[in-house]
């Protein structure tokens, strides 16, 4: 069952990545600007998924939307991991009072979920993809600190680290040789789950008009536009939602599959 989850997840993620890469090279119609096609056309030929209220081909916008979703995800998770993992290892190494202080700060950070921080920053710097990425990235740092610290603590408590210390192996070498390889799978799982959450947050932000600007196609904004025409042309509200759900499901399944596939200690519970 777990192996199937990983495969379905990888297929979905590969699909989203493929769409994003394709959009750099080719899209059936011009994804931005005012379309020449009829407005709000139903799915059919040549507009496979129909057109939006400005006559722009929906499928083309979905393609480019994949690109901005992945772009935000990569940068946000990148920020969170690059800051969170080292801090997590540091928190594991610090003496009790040091770690206690840090983890209290992490608890406070949990009260600022990605979306709230993004809304706050949008208020100060104005809505843009960059503020969204920065906010989502910063808000995800605590999750990485928590996961890394827990993993690092169990590694540091192991006998092989004690043996390394008994041979005088320096601390940084222990961190690189023993801690990192043994928590890599935990960070990998957290990265894919955080990627899914980043896509959701970006979609919500764009829907609220606080994420990617109107000039850049984004799934969330497409849903926002589709809602205004929900009464007359409901079809437009389906495709972007499916795209978001598909991408998020993909990354979550990869995360779950990784967690069980790479972590041999997870035996079957009686």
């Amino acid at each position, binding site marked *: 069952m777990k192996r199937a989850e990983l495969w379905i997840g990888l297929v979905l993620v590969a699909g989203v990545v493929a769409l994003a890469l394709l959009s750099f090279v080719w899209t059936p119609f011009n994804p931005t600007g005012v379309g020449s096609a009829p407005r709000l056309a139903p799915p059919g030929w040549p507009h496979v998924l129909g057109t939006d209220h400005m006559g722009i081909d929906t499928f083309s916008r979905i393609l480019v939307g994949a690109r901005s979703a992945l772009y935000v995800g990569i940068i946000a998770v990148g920020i969170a991991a690059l800051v969170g993992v080292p801090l997590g290892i540091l928190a594991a190494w610090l003496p009790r009072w040091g770690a206690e202080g840090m983890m209290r700060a992490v608890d406070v950070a949990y009260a600022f979920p990605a979306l709230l921080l993004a809304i706050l920053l949008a208020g100060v710097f104005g809505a843009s993809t960059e503020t969204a990425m920065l906010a989502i990235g910063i808000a995800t740092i605590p999750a990485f600190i928590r996961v890394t610290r827990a993993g690092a603590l169990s590694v540091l408590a192991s006998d092989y680290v004690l043996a390394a210390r008994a*041979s005088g192996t320096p601390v940084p070498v222990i961190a690189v040789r023993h801690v990192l390889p043994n928590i890599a799978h935990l960070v990998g799982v957290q990265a894919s789950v955080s990627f899914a959450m980043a896509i959701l947050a970006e979609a919500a932000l764009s829907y609220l008009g606080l994420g990617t600007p109107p000039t850049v196609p984004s799934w969330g904004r497409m849903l926002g536009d589709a809602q205004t025409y929900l009464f007359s042309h409901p079809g437009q509200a389906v495709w972007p939602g499916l795209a978001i759900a598909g991408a998020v499901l993909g990354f979550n399944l990869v995360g779950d599959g990784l967690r069980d596939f790479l972590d041999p200690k997870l035996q079957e519970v009686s």
Partner: protein
Amino acid sequence: MTALFEVHGLTRVYTTGRRSVVALEDVSLTVEPGQRLGIVGESGSGKSTLVRLMAGLDRPTSGTVHFGGRPVSGVPERQLGFLRASVQFVFQDPRSSLNPRMRVGDVVAEPLRSPLVRRELGALDQRRRVAEVLDAVGLPADAASRYPHEFSGGQRQRIAIARALAPSPQVLIADEAVSALDVSVRAHVLNLLMALVDDLGLTLLFVSHDLAVVRHVCPDAVVLQGGRIVERGPTQRLFTAPEHPYTARLVAAIPTFRARS
């Protein structure tokens, strides 16, 4: 001949929040080169704390440790090269003593790559040394390229012993080294340990809760209770004529064979 280890008034108190636990209290002992000393005690008696303080892996609350006449406690890590090269450990749990993500060859060679140890030993062919010690513990040379999860509990303890022998130490500290092994495997590992200690003239500190095993492996022993040494002497005498009531209770508690009707 000066003693190898000199321990005076060693005390270690662990404090968490308002509560503090006395793990070790005013322990003094000496270990002669080549001696095989048993350190016996039940859980919480302080035996592991003692050997970790002696190996400079933990800081004592008070008291001193000297190795080969040189101070160990309170000395900064970078000056402990002399200790790191000559004192090596074998731990209890075969599942946790080897890094699962490292090949066995790298695991065994790790002590040789420590800058402190390298300064003491000077240049040496690490690959050859690894092959030598793997052979000494009865493992095939190709074991070096495999990962720990491919080996049984007993084989993993042999790898841990090989790692300890790699920098050709003077002292081997076995901290409950056979307690987690099945009875049939335990005999093999004990025989290996005893043979190596004899052939290489090592000093052995054998920590265990199992008095019967200590009696077999160590001519002398100290008995620890609640962080204090309550008795010391030839292990045989501890069995036949224990002076301290706790030792007597320990010996009497060992289950003996009894034919029930």
